[in-house]
């Protein structure tokens, strides 16, 4: 008989990091080492994380596939499942199904400049691919990360931002919305689309990867278009609501696309073929 596709892996919480108010990262290890050895994923993919007794939630895999032996997820405490997850301690068991969905096409990006543009809680999906590219640094030319949040406290991965800021082989630009700055804030103040406009990255031989709240994406895309980015050179990753992740439950269906199967990674050219229901 076919395997039960809804049966999750059991995962042990190996470490917990508080990223921002209400936002946490779990480092997860497979309870059964054999599962861990067989497990493979590529950057861009996601999974269904479950608090047993409460249900499943969809998040990306926020760690890079170049870092073996564990996966990480970052989530904001919002509903029933994420509240329950937020109550868990190191050593507790949660469920994970995945990896699902398509991937960021790193092969295609080789030899190109990369600019990552992220807002708020949307850095986690890009963090996976950013680390993946940094771990394969020689394969790419200039790497730039523009990351903005409402306020300084809301920036996630603060330690890693510090690390990225110090690196000489990449450029990090952080920004907070006007009013979100604190004394001693050394980053920019302003909305992400404006910061990208100021930065004016050259579009030649460059791929832009954009992920953030709908309004940020909506306002950043015209900026990139003005800078000369082609629609096949702009990528994003969608976060439609899902239940199965397997192309069956119907929730993420947008046009002919199942975000869980054909996505979550889309180029702008692909996105424009879908009805705006994401």
């Amino acid at each position, binding site marked *: *008989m*076919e*395997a*039960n*596709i*809804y*049966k*999750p892996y*059991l995962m042990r919480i190996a470490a917990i990091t508080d990223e921002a108010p209400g936002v946490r990262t779990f480092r997860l290890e497979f*309870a059964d080492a054999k599962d861990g050895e067989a497990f493979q994923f590529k950057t861009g993919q996601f999974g269904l994380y*479950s608090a*047993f*007794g*409460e*249900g*499943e*939630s969809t998040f990306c895999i926020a760690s890079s596939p170049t870092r073996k032996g564990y996966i990480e997820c970052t989530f*904001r405490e*919002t*509903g029933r499942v*994420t509240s329950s997850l937020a109550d868990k301690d190191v*050593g*507790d*068991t949660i*469920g994970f199904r995945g990896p699902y969905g398509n991937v960021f096409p790193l092969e295609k990006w080789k030899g190109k400049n990369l600019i990552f543009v992220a807002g708020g809680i949307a850095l986690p999906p890009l963090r996976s691919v950013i680390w993946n590219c940094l771990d394969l640094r020689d394969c790419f030319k200039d790497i730039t990360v523009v990351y903005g949040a409402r306020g300084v406290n809301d920036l996630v991965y603060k330690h890693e931002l510090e690390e990225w800021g110090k690196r000489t082989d990449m450029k990090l630009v952080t920004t907070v919305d006007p009013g979100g700055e604190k004394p001693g804030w050394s980053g920019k103040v302003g909305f992400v689309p404006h910061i990208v406009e100021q930065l004016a990255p050259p579009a030649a031989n460059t791929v832009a990867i954009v992920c953030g*709240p*709908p309004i940020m994406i909506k306002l950043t895309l015209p900026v990139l278009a003005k800078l000369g980015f082609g629609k096949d050179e702009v990528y994003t990753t969608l*976060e*439609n*609501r899902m*239940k*199965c992740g*397997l*192309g*069956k*439950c*119907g*929730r993420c*269906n*947008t*046009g*002919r696309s199942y975000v869980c*199967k054909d996505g979550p990674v889309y180029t702008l050219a692909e996105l424009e073929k879908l*009805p*705006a*229901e*994401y």
Partner: protein
Amino acid sequence: MSEKSTLTEAAVGTLFDALVKSGWRVLGPKEGAERIEIAEIKTATELAKDGQSVVSAKGTVFPKVERLVKYRYEGKNVALEDVQPNAAPTVLFGVRPCEARAFHALDVVFNWDYKDTFFNTRLANTTVVAISCTQADESCFCTSVGSRPDDSAGSDILLSRLKGGGYVAEVLTDKGKALIALAKGALQPPPITPDVVPPATVAPAFDAKVLEQKLASKFDSPLWLEQSLRCLGCGACAYVCPTCVCFSIEDEADTRQGDRLRTWDSCGLRMFTLHASGHNPRDKQSQRWRQRVYHKFAYYPDRFKTLGCVGCGKCSRACPVDMNLKQHLAEAAQG
């Protein structure tokens, strides 16, 4: 393959007795106090003669609530228990051809990529004996979606009622062959000129191919708002539908153990697409109504080369505000 024989009323009785004796679960449209329901039946006399069940027979292969995962808490650990679909050998007896045909629309979703063992096990254990439809109503539109009242697609055996009582049985599959063998001694050769009750007349209301073409340019049409202004968003249409496959996955647990359950759901409900952030890609009922139409009549044919609708009309009969799918689709296929 297709073999015909005559199944007299007595032979149907023999078949039922044999089925019950060999432990088969027999489900079929049963005349209840207020409505026809798909329920367990023990004798052929319990079968509703004409008319349609309110809720479809899809629960036979895709139950309303089904356990997918079972778990126990053991301190900080969790133990998963193996879950098998509880799929007793089942005969779905006496359903209308539209119901039999609907299983294909479920099958394409449950198997286009990952294989759903729960659905597949149930489907493999289900034999479908449909009866040609002799009575249609104003909600029926099978002839608009590539079918007809005596369509044999999806059936293992198709019965056609003889005017003088009994049926002509057309055996279409190996499953059907195995089933009819249970009534072997009681079978008779088919009549040379079978005098069957003529199938119901269902006038085509639109052409599904034309509709699909029209939908390609009607996404932003005001039609969807106009048609859905009275929609309550209750989801009754999806609940009774034989092809609606959208589901939810929910946990139900106490302090020691729990189940992860699959439950029917509907794209017509507001919560269906609501993001955790509060953003809802289909925030308005008109967008959800449009999704229902497009999913079944544009996305299905595009993606799965089949329609997500069999024209049974159950949704129209169940709608508390009398939205009529046949009329709405005919309207969309015009202009």
